[in-house]
């Protein structure tokens, strides 16, 4: 029997078995940011420890950076204190920091791939649950807590229990107007928000073969929303093509060696999986959430579930969701009025997301009363987008064009919902209060669906608004 990529990478990085049965696993790449690292550096100092492999540690600032205020000190003194703590810590321990003045700052899960730090066959850890994003390159990437950030800083290892591997095949061809975001929302809806508990998800099949690296990242990014701590796609020519020439990738003769090594990590054809799920691409339609977790989702043309259709605890969570969202069981989701449209985040804040959205925004305008913002995922994304004139398209359509950061995905900066505003959002979580107001409401969807909602002022089918339907029937 062959091995999966997960098992090959795990075996190569295993240091030893710990007395409690866990594995001490070597973490080749450690990504840090301002929110979950300062306490870890504090613990290092308290214990008199240092950073074992500073050259394998990379920092950026993303969660708290204001996106409309580029001059320091920031108006929020706590945000200022956090960025300064990261500057001090990275300087003291000799860690590369993609600070705001480098032109490379951005959301950690966008910066890693962009700089070529994220590579196949590696282990990656970051104090952020969306670290699975890097799995798009065939890396095993874990979101970790702050004590583990401390562990990785001090030892470049952490204690982990092995995982099972579930292969998720999506075969066939996606219909026009169906995006990577719809694929992952559909997977989470099918398997549940805790369906991935104890599993690493290996995504594959025709749809993933055809996906760009950015689309693969969108899917891997939300693995945790399905309960899976990591998710990955096997590396292929697209992976290598994306990485070639990036700043932190091997070059010259070393490039060929690296590609050879990377290829060897892909799951064997006869690899054994603990579970296999098969999904037909044609069954997936544009998907939106209606509740307070990412599994509470429907196709855009569906009505919301009736409480009596749901079992036990799902029913209780749904009742809570309906109350919070001010939605009624059985109603269509289409036509729900929105107040805010947000394009951005580590899920959908990349170049291809902005390009695809701009394509449909061109010549159109945001509905009166809707606040629309576009937040590029990194300074590099912003620079390329601006060079291509996308900022102009977004602005002319009535969107605010902002600086790079996490922004309204989790509202640790000044970008927040007010009161019970409803947001059409390309981000990854619709938890109560997630976008900065305890009573604020979030409907997750693809960036193109956000654009359609922004233009019409309500949740709607982008395929109709933008004329995809004609393409479908053609």
């Amino acid at each position, binding site marked *: 029997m062959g091995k999966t990529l997960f098992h090959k990478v795990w075996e190569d*990085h*295993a*240091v030893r078995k*710990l*007395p*409690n*049965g*866990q594995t*001490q696993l*070597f973490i*080749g790449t450690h990504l840090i940011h301002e929110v*979950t690292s*300062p*306490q870890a550096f*504090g613990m290092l100092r308290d*214990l008199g*420890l240092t950073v*074992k*492999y500073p050259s*394998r540690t990379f920092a950026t600032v993303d969660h708290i950076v204001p996106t409309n205020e580029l001059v320091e000190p920031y108006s929020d003194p706590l*945000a200022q*204190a*956090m960025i300064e*703590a990261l500057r001090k810590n990275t300087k003291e321990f000799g860690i590369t920091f993609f600070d705001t003045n480098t032109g490379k700052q951005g959301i950690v899960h966008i910066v890693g791939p962009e700089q070529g730090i994220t*590579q196949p*066959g590696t282990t990656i850890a970051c104090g*952020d*649950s969306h670290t699975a994003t890097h799995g798009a390159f065939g890396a095993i990437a874990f*979101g*970790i*807590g*702050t*004590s*583990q950030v*401390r*562990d990785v800083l*001090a*030892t*470049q*290892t*952490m*204690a982990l*229990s092995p995982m099972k591997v579930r292969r998720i095949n999506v075969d066939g061809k996606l219909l026009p107007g169906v995006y990577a975001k719809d694929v992952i929302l559909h997977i989470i809806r099918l398997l549940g*928000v*805790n369906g991935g*508990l*104890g599993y690493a998800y290996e995504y594959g099949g025709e749809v993933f073969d055809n996906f760009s690296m950015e689309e693969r990242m969108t899917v891997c990014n939300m693995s*945790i929303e399905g*309960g899976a701590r990591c998710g990955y796609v096997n590396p292929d020519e697209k992976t290598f093509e994306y990485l070639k020439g990036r700043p932190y990738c091997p070059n010259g003769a070393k490039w060929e*060696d*690296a590609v050879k090594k990377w290829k060897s990590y892909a799951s064997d054809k006869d690899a054994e999986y603990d579970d296999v799920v098969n999904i037909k691409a044609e069954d997936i339609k544009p998907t939106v959430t209606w509740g307070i*977790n990412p599994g509470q989702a429907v196709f855009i043309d569906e009505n919301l579930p009736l409480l009596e259709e749901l079992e036990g*605890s799902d029913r209780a*969570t749904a009742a809570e969701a309906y109350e919070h969202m001010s939605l009624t069981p059985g109603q269509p989701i289409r036509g729900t009025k929105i107040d805010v449209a947000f394009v951005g985040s580590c899920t959908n804040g990349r170049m291809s997301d902005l390009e695809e959205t701009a394509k449909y925004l061109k010549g159109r305008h945001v509905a009166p009363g809707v606040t629309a913002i576009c937040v590029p995922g990194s300074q590099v994304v912003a620079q390329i987008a601006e060079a291509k004139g996308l900022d102009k398209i977004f602005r002319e359509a009535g969107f605010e064009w902002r600086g790079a950061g996490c922004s309204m995905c989790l509202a*640790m900066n000044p970008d927040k919902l007010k009161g019970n505003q409803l947001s059409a959002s390309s981000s990854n979580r619709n*938890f*109560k*209060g*997630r976008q900065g107001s*305890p009573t604020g409401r979030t409907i997750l969807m693809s960036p193109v669906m956000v654009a359609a909602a922004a233009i019409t002022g309500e949740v709607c089918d982008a395929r109709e608004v933008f004329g995809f339907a004609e393409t479908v029937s053609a």
Partner: protein
Amino acid sequence: MAALEKITKVTGRAVPVPGDDVDTDRIIPARFMKCVTFDGLGEFAFYDVRYDGEGKKKPHPLNEKRFEGATIMLVGSNFGCGSSREHAPQSLHKFGVRAIIGLSYAEIFFGNATTLGMPCVSVDKDTLHTLTQIVESHPDKALTIDLEKMTVTAGENSYPIKLAETAREGLLAGEWDPLALLLNKPEDIETVADRLHYV
């Protein structure tokens, strides 16, 4: 490094915090994570469900006088889903929680809590229901979680609990924070680093 306490039992009064899929944004809203230490997080545990927009207390078990000082939380399934923020278990720990009894836990939360020496044990639905009833009617009575016998005891009655063996071993051995173990064979770490193609 100082030796850690061996955690064999947790005894204390309990408070039910019902609901499934309670996420880490609910346990500690992101705006309270603007800090460079974990100090002071305790008062913000479950803030938005405990307080309204004006900072007035809302009806919630954690606000009830009869559950004041409880050190064990009773929770539903997939508790702690969402973000990897250790701020969530840290805020509960600083609030006074020393153990959690529930149906199931999100993986990262479970690991983060265990590393703080705060066991997250699982029970079946019937047991959770029974324990909740006991706690509701006798909030002054303590429960005892016994990690050696793998039971939770309420008065005369004991019920079986589950806990991943790795976490149980760590807690019983006083090795629930793995850092000391991770530090003690640096040569093994370097051997792996040397054989990897990219380090």
